[in-house]
């Protein structure tokens, strides 16, 4: 030891020496991280005691002393004293698809695959073929709705084609009037040619309806009633619909809230604050019991659509606040520079402000999605069968009754895995954004 302090080195020749104390090793790690101060010793001992009390019991119940096979509760009990996972195994299909007809379940699977492809494409910036996937994502909600509900595929295809043509034409011009006119003309033509034609005003003369799409049945899928939807599939439907439709709506609301037109601004403020001020449950009650009061007599939607509408409105208010945060983070100089270059309001929003604002808000958007996804469990109070609803319904089965812990734990783990993954992703994005700013 004394040797190293006494040795003299030529200038520039000093080797790097190990430090005189230990920096590695289990004992040292333990000392530094668990027992550095008296308080820490107490805390560590408490934590170890807690783990000792809880972990073995939980593992015993859920794994080592659990039954994985069996046809009813008593068979489980006969095998082991802990959890009875056989129940979950038997009901797994139900938990996933609800009561969706077995022969048609490939449609659910296909939609799910499309969903995964779209999300990967949207969330992963350097994904190969990203342009195509983004195009696919625009069509996805409609395609998925068709796949899940079924019906005449040609009709949907034609409708989508009309919308695509209209959009393509709209993006050619930047004047608002032009866009509105083109949109109206396209809608009119589509109605005139394909969708039943037009009844001339003040007369009974019916023209158009040149092509009756009901004659083309080669793309038909058998219809499945939405009453049969349930399980994790329903959770995903509610979450994804909520996010897909609430994002554009939320952007409009956020822009409206920032507008300098008082009427537009306060309308948006009132809407946003109203929705954020009441619990989702009350909105769902409204959807289930009284939405039809506000519609013209005789109009009815099925419950799922009503719920989806409400969930979308609900999410859009939260989305608006998230987007507003992003808009406020975009420097004022950006709009000024766009103004100075002669860009008008909408182009300057679309090309300059929104791309930056949305990029900043992606983590918060993901978090809103997580919230919505978790909130989708609330639909059980109005009788839809999400996984929790399926679980509770299954508990009524006398063969299996009393297995509440298993059901709740299973559903909890499902939600935990998916939400935690999304939360990690949003955290990763946030870190990336922050390091990006430092540069």
């Amino acid at each position, binding site marked *: 030891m004394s040797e190293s302090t006494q040795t003299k080195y030529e200038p520039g020749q000093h080797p790097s020496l190990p430090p005189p104390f230990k920096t590695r090793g289990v004992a040292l790690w333990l000392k530094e991280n668990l027992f550095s101060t008296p308080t820490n010793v107490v805390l560590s001992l408490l934590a170890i005691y807690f783990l000792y009390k809880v972990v073995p019991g939980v593992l015993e119940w859920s794994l080592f002393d659990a039954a994985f096979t069996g046809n009813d509760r008593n068979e489980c009990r006969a095998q082991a004293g802990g959890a009875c996972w056989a129940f979950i195994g038997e009901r797994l299909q139900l938990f996933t698809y609800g009561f969706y007809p077995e022969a048609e379940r490939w449609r659910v699977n296909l939609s799910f695959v499309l969903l995964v492809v779209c999300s990967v494409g949207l969330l992963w910036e350097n994904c190969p073929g990203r342009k195509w996937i983004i195009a696919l994502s625009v069509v996805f909600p409609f395609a998925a709705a068709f796949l899940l509900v079924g019906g005449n595929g040609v009709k949907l295809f034609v409708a989508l084609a009309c919308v695509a043509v209209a959009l393509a034409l709209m993006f050619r011009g*930047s004047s608002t009037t032009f866009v509105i006119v083109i949109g109206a003309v396209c809608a009119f033509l589509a109605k005139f040619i394909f969708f039943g034609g037009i009844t001339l005003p003040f007369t009974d003369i019916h023209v158009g309806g040149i092509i009756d799409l009901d004659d083309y049945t080669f793309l038909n899928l058998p219809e499945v009633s939405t009453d049969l939807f349930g399980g994790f599939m329903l959770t995903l439907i509610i979450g994804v619909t909520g996010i897909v439709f609430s994002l554009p709506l939320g952007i409009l609301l956020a822009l409206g809230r920032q507008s300098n037109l008082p009427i537009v601004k306060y309308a948006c403020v009132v809407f946003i604050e109203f929705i954020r001020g009441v619990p989702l449950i009350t909105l769902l009650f409204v959807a289930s019991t009284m939405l039809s009061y506000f519609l013209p007599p005789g109009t009815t939607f099925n419950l799922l659509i009503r719920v989806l509408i409400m969930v979308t409105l609900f999410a859009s208010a939260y989305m608006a606040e998230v987007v507003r945060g992003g808009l406020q983070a975009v*420097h004022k*100089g*950006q709009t*000024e*520079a*766009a*103004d*100075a*270059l*002669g*860009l*008008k309001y909408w*182009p300057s929003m679309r*090309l*300059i402000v929104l*791309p*930056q604002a949305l*990029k900043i808000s992606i983590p918060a958007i993901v978090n809103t999605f997580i919230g919505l996804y978790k909130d989708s469990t609330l639909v059980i109070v109005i009788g839809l069968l999400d996984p929790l609803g399926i679980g509770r319904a299954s508990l009524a089965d006398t063969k299996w009754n009393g297995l509440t812990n298993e059901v709740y734990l299973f559903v909890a783990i499902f939600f935990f895995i998916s939400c935690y993954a999304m939360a990690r992703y949003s955290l990763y994005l946030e870190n990336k954004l922050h390091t990006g700013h430092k*540069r």
Partner: protein
Amino acid sequence: MNDSTNNVSATGRALGESTIQIRNMHKWYGEFHVLRDINLDVKSGERIVVCGPSGSGKSTMIRCINRLEEHQQGDIIVDNVELTNDLKNIEAVRREVGMVFQHFNLFPHLTVLENCTLAPIWVRKQPKAEAEAIAMKYLERVKIPDQALKYPGQLSGGQQQRVAIARSLCMSPKVMLFDEPTSALDPEMIKEVLDVMIELAEEGMTMICVTHEMGFAKTVADRVIFMDEGQIIEENEPDQFFNNPQSERTQLFLSQILAH
């Protein structure tokens, strides 16, 4: 305002018609009277430097010229178009007037080239290829064609400001406004930006430039305007302005600036 200003600049170049005319212009921020009775006439090809103490309303004045700020009284006429509430006029003026900001205000999510082609494509409705060719031409003029595909965040301050100048030039403006284009830059970067501005001036661009670079004012300006408390205090040829300032406030200001 003396109408007798002849159409020859201080440097002896022939000047064209009036491009910008500001008459009896007033502006308020709420109760605060920022600009008081501004009168200014800028001929085409003229180079004007505006200086004055901080908060005197220089930025506000030139931002009124492309209506980033609204004036409440008086007239502003740019390239024969009067700035009123008429959106068509505002659009027309903004098409013809370029502006360079103190903090560049480049669009961080677009590449340098996209920054330059954005307005030509969306405002002038040029085809993309043509817009890109023009953009490259101007990027060459500001000496950074090799940075075209980078993002603004990857450039130095001086490079960013030159991109901002190129971005404005791509709209082939008749007038360029500069709001302290060099005050956020390090000394060596200031030079590269000033060089570009001097070159631009020599090509006959009409310019209004808020700056405290007195060297630039002396060599380039046809006229120097001194503002204080929202008023134009003094307006003169650079020689006269620096060597023989008329008002006391100008003298004080100059002595403070030149003391450094």
